[in-house]
C-alpha cells in the first residue's frame, strides 16, 4: 500500500490533466498540420509549412514577445525579491496578511485595473498633466502606447506570481544557517549572497517559470497599453483564431510559442546549473 501512495495521490490530478489538457492538445497538434478554412473545411495534409510560414511571417512579434517577457521578468525579479525577503524573514505572524494584501488587487477585475491605469497614465491626466503644467515634463511626453507601458503592465500584472514562490522558498530557510554565517564573520551582504540567495534559487526559478511564460504569451497588456509597434505574439494568435478563423495557423503558432518557451526555460535552468530542469521547477 505504501508503494501505491504516490500514485493514488497523483491520480486525480493526472486524470484531470490527461482529459482536459492532453487530449485537446493532441487534437490541436493535429489541427496545426491541416489546411483549409472554416467554411470549406479543413483537411489533414501534414503541412509542416504551416509552421514555417507562421514563423516566417511573425518572427518579429515572436522575438518581441520574448524580449518583453524577459524584460518584465527581470523587472519583477528585481522589484519582487526584496518584498519576498522582507515578508519571509521579518513578516512574523502577519506573513499571510502581507501575502493576502499583495494578491488583493487581483481579486478585482483586470479590466478595471487596466482601465484605471489608462486613466492614471493619461497624457494629460492627474499624474502627467500636473507634471507637465509644472514644466517638469515636455508636452510631448507620453507613456501610454509605448513599449514602456506594455512592459510596465506585464510587470504589474504578474508581480505576485514572482513574489509568492520566492517567499515560499525563503520562508523555509533556517535562520540558524544565517546565524552561523554571521558567527563566521560574514557581513550582511556576504551572508545574503552566499547563503540566502543560493537557497532561494529554486524559488526564483519557480517564480521565473510562472511569470516569464504567461507574460510572453499575454495579449491583453499590448492590446490596452501598447502602440503601433508593440503587437505581441498573443495578439497574433488571438486574431488568427477568432477573427480569421485560421485554426491551423493559430495552432501552429501556439505550439511554436510553447516550444520556444520550453527552450528558454531549459537554457535558463542550465545557466542556473540545476541538474534536472523540470525537477528544479518543483523546488
Amino acid at each position: 500500500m505504501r508503494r501505491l501512495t504516490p500514485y493514488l495521490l497523483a491520480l486525480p490530478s493526472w486524470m484531470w490533466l490527461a482529459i482536459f489538457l492532453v487530449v485537446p492538445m493532441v487534437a490541436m497538434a493535429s489541427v496545426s498540420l491541416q489546411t483549409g478554412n472554416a467554411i470549406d473545411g479543413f483537411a489533414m495534409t501534414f503541412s509542416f509549412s504551416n509552421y514555417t510560414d507562421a514563423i516566417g511571417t511573425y518572427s518579429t512579434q515572436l522575438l518581441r514577445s520574448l524580449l518583453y517577457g524577459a524584460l518584465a521578468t527581470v523587472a519583477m525579479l528585481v522589484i519582487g525579491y526584496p518584498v519576498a525577503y522582507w515578508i519571509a524573514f521579518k513578516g512574523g505572524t502577519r506573513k499571510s496578511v502581507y501575502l493576502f494584501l499583495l494578491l488583493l488587487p487581483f481579486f478585482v477585475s483586470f479590466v478595471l485595473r487596466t482601465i484605471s491605469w489608462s486613466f492614471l497614465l493619461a497624457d494629460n491626466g492627474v499624474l502627467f498633466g500636473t507634471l507637465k503644467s509644472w514644466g517638469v515634463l515636455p508636452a510631448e511626453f507620453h507613456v501610454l502606447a509605448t513599449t514602456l507601458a506594455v512592459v510596465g503592465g506585464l510587470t504589474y500584472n504578474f508581480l505576485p506570481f514572482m513574489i509568492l514562490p520566492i517567499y515560499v522558498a525563503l520562508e523555509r530557510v533556517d535562520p540558524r544557517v544565517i546565524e552561523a554565517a554571521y558567527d563566521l564573520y560574514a557581513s550582511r551582504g556576504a551572508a545574503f549572497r552566499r547563503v540566502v540567495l543560493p537557497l532561494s534559487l529554486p524559488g526564483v526559478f519557480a517564480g521565473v517559470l510562472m511569470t516569464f511564460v504567461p507574460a510572453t504569451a499575454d495579449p491583453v497588456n499590448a492590446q490596452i497599453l501598447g502602440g503601433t509597434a508593440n503587437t505581441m505574439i498573443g495578439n497574433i494568435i488571438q486574431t488568427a483564431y477568432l477573427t480569421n478563423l485560421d485554426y491551423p495557423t493559430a495552432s501552429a503558432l501556439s505550439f511554436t510559442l510553447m516550444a520556444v518557451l520550453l527552450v528558454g526555460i531549459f537554457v535558463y535552468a542550465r545557466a542556473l546549473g540545476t541538474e534536472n530542469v523540470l525537477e528544479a521547477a518543483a523546488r
Partner: protein
Amino acid sequence: MRGGRLGDRLLHGYTWLIIAWLSSPIAVMILFGFNDKKSKSNTTWQGFTLKWYQELFSISDLTVALRNSLVIAVVSTVITVVIGTMLGLAVGRYRFRGQGTTNFLVFAAISTPELVMGASLLSLFVSGNVPRDGTTIIVAHVLFSLSFVVVTVRARVIVLDPALEEAARDLGATAWGTFRQVTLPSIMPGVLAGAMLSFALSIDDYVVTSFVNGSTITFPLWIVGSVKTGIPPQVNVMGTLIFGIGVLIAIANAVAARRRS
C-alpha cells in the same frame, strides 16, 4: 538578527510601497464608484454621490454574474487545492515512475496560452456533447490553476523532514492522523499561497472562461462586455466592496495573529 535596523526599516517601507503600487488603480476604481455621472460613460469626474451604493443590485445580470464568479472561484479553489496538494505531495516526497511526465504536464499547463486552452477545451466539450455552463467553467479554472498550486506546494514539501512523520507513526498515529497533525501544518504556507493564487486566478479569468461558459456569465465577462458602451459605476462599487472585505479580512487576520503571538 544583528545589525542593519535601517536596512530592515527600508525594506519594510519598500514592501508597503509595493503593496500601495499594486493597489493604486484600485484607488481610482473606488473613486469612480462615487462619480455622479450623467451619461453612460464613467471616465470624467462629475460630482460626488452615494447613489450607486444604493442602486448596487439594480442591474440584475451584473449581480448574477458576480454571484456566479464567487461560487465558481470558491468551488474551483477547493478542488484545485485538494488535488493539487495531493500531487504536490506525491512529486515532492516520493520517487515514482511518471514524475518526468508529471513535470512536463505541469509545465505544459502553465505555458499554454489562455486562448489556446480555452479553444481546445471548447472543442473537447462540443465533441463530447457536454453542455457548457458553470460546471465547465469550474473544470477549466481547475485546469489552469492546478500547476500553480502544485509548484507552490511542491516547493514546500521538498524540504519536509520525513523523520517527523516517522516519529508520529511510531507513536501510533494513523496515516490520516499523521497527515492532519504533522504534514498538513508544515505544508500549510504552500497550500495557503496556492489557494490564494487559485482564487485570484479564477475570479479574474476572462479568456478561458469566455470560451467555455456557454450562457453563464461571470463578473469579468460582464465587465468586458460593458466596456464598449461604458462600465456602469455599480461595477466600481462591487470592486470596492470586494476590495474592502478583503482588507477587513486582512486586518482581522493581523489582529488574530497578534493575539496568538
